[in-house]
């Protein structure tokens, strides 16, 4: 204990401190004696936290010593020492991948610590359970999260200043309203998805730190997408339209486990990536072209994670392969239902066709785009070693009906 500079002499001793003192065998009155000798309550608390016994405290106070030398036990904990990581790629700087060395890079198949301990540090002997529920690497992990985290940070952009707002020019009313309706839906979808990933963060234990860091970039990306879509909708004489349909989002919300959440979102993440990759076809101006391209670049990282996570999951947990069909089928069915919603497909058909008067042509173009979305989705599943033998009937029906004379997109 050190000399206190100017501590008040009359302080209320918290019950927690008294209880701790009793546990350590401090006699009644010893805390008051320490305070009378000029030690602060902070220092008394410090001694209690350090496990100073009643006998030690009594001896120390009796000899009027001023300082109890801490023994710095934490300097001697047997963690891996002597680490000097350096950037492997100077252009990218010091990346997470550079830290994956020795024991610090060992991401265990099962993480057993239930506290918020940083992986690689020396655990406290007794800690409270922080309530994490995900301890298996196979559930959440993909090796690509390590580089993707840094790439996400490198590729960050700002909707306020990185898009050419001043170049916006008035569009025909039907086109402007189609843009606004499409972006109202997309803004809500991005915002909603961000909140869903965010809600799962506290479930994931700290063994999978890098995955949590990557998901944080996903949440931030989706925030920017939602923001940018809203800004565009309010910038050119339009406004927000009808809220997004709720069927698909509800099953995201209803997911009971992380693998279910990831599987359900896989479907939309892949479909939206393809949509934004085709942004040139629906964009009406340079701003929208840039916006969709930036969103596609961000979503590529997310889909990369989705593919690699699923692949790793299926490899480690092959008995859960068939179960995934249930989630994919459910998600495909809900997406197909929403693709038939007029406030979803009509704006896209107008944008693709070039106006309300050309909506039939736009509908045909949309069908091609939907086909590309589904093809890419199936290909992404295949990259993850997952073969969808038959897609959900609602989704298939969209393309089967297209051959009929009065098809809907």
């Amino acid at each position, binding site marked *: 204990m050190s000399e*206190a500079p100017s501590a008040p002499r009359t*302080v209320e001793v918290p*019950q927690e401190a008294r209880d701790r003192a009793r546990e350590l065998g401090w006699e009644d009155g010893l805390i008051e004696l320490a305070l009378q000798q000029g030690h*602060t*309550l*902070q220092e008394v*608390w410090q001694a209690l936290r350090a496990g100073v016994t009643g006998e030690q405290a009594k001896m120390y106070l009796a000899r009027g010593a001023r*300082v109890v030398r*801490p023994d*710095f036990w*934490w300097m001697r*904990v047997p*963690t891996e020492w002597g*680490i*000097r990581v350096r950037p492997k790629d100077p252009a990218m*700087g010091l990346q997470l991948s550079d830290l994956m*060395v020795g024991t610090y890079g060992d991401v265990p198949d099962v993480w057993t610590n239930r*506290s*918020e301990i*940083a992986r*690689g*540090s*020396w*655990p406290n002997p007794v800690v409270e359970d*922080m309530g994490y529920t995900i301890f298996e690497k196979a559930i959440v992990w993909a090796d690509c999260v390590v580089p993707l985290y*840094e790439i996400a*940070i490198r590729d960050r952009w700002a909707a*306020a200043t990185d*898009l050419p*707002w001043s170049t916006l020019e008035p569009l025909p009313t039907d086109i402007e*309203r189609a843009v*606004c309706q499409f972006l109202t839906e997309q*803004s*809500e979808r991005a*915002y*909603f998805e961000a*909140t869903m990933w*965010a*809600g799962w963060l*506290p479930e994931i234990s700290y063994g999978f*730190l890098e995955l949590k860091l990557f998901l*944080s970039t996903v*949440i*931030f990306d989706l*925030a920017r997408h939602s923001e940018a879509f*809203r*800004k565009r909708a309010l*910038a050119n004489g339009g*406004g*927000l*339209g*009808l809220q997004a349909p*709720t*069927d698909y989002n509800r099953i995201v919300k209803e997911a009971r486990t992380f693998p279910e959440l990831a599987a359900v979102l896989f479907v939309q993440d892949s479909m939206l990536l393809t949509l934004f990759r085709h942004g040139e076809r629906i964009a009406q101006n340079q701003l929208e072209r840039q916006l969709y391209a930036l969103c596609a670049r961000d979503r590529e990282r997310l889909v990369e994670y989705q593919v690699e996570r699923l692949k790793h999951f299926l490899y480690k947990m092959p008995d859960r392969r068939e179960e995934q069909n249930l989630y994919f089928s459910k998600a495909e069915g809900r997406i197909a*239902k929403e693709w038939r919603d*007029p406030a979803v497909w*009509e704006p896209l058909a107008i944008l693709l066709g070039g106006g*309300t008067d050309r*909506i039939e042509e736009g509908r045909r173009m949309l069908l091609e785009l939907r086909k590309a979305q589904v093809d890419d989705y199936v290909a992404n599943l295949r990259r993850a070693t997952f073969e969808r033998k038959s897609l959900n009937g609602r989704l298939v029906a969209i393309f089967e009906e297209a051959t009929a004379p*009065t098809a809907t997109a």
Partner: protein
Amino acid sequence: MAVNPSTGQGEGLDLSWLDLYDDAASATPSKKGMTLADINLGRYSAEARGAGDMTFRLRGAIPRPNAQRFGPNYQSKADVWAENCLMLYEEAVQRQWSSARDIPWETLEPLPDDIERAMCQLCTMLTEVEFIAGDVPGQWLPFVSAQDYEAGLFLMTQIMDEARHTDVFRKRALANGGGLLAQGAGLGLRTLIEARDFTEMSVLMHIQAEGFVQSMFRMGELIGKTEADKRIFRMSAQDESRHLAFGVMHLKYVLDTEPERREEIHHYLDKAEGDAAGGGSGDVTFPPVFEALCILLGGGKDKFDEGVQKFLLLRKRQVNEYLHRLEVAGLGDRRQRVGPLLRQFVEAA
């Protein structure tokens, strides 16, 4: 304006969604670009917030009559709102930085063993603390109504900020011949996860915990021994300022609009100040953290006593800045009620 588009029931066109735009918006960018403040217009503005619903319908979007609910979320604006969240979101987006490239890692140089170990111990504690600070807003985001959209967006930037802090302190611990050391104390961190109300969480995390961390970061010139270390603290402090600003203005909004919650908020603080001297900032009185800070502040193990004096100054600064922030938020009477472990550091107003 109500429309209810049919979903593939007929083959004809619906197009009813084309008739929803009787309140056209043409936001123009300001000198800071197209900001959230620039699109805060008419029926889309935060001021025009109507009743919440339990869907994720964004403020200003037209409701679907058949929209399903998604479970409970906050219905009252005061529950989650801060008047500065539009500005803070934009600032957060503009001021993102990269722990990989914006820290001059090349300026790290071998330090005396005691100093390096102390720095690594501090970083071990901070990397632990910072990701709890990312989990916590994650926990609450699903309960923030999309009517209070910008508050939600701000929390998403906070998650990103905390990820970067987690990452930068881990990098620092592994970059200069050291490593991670003893796990920091969890005391106080559980308090943040345990909060059952957004305002409770915000007061404990944004104002108390991040406030204490912020006061520490602002002494980074004393704590850090290399330019890289000092830069880490400066950049992190910049981010923490936004989180604190959100918390202060959220509390102000609550106290301005729901003054009946004052005693309830005191109750949360009574508990938190009693449970741990450092609140949710990670317990700086936990011996490894306390001792590491004293070594860094003093300049070595052999100057530990000088370090203790500076540590006490840090505690004084933490507590008084904390009380000042509460005062700005309208909770000036906290000064008279502050918990015993903090009271000894209170300076006369």
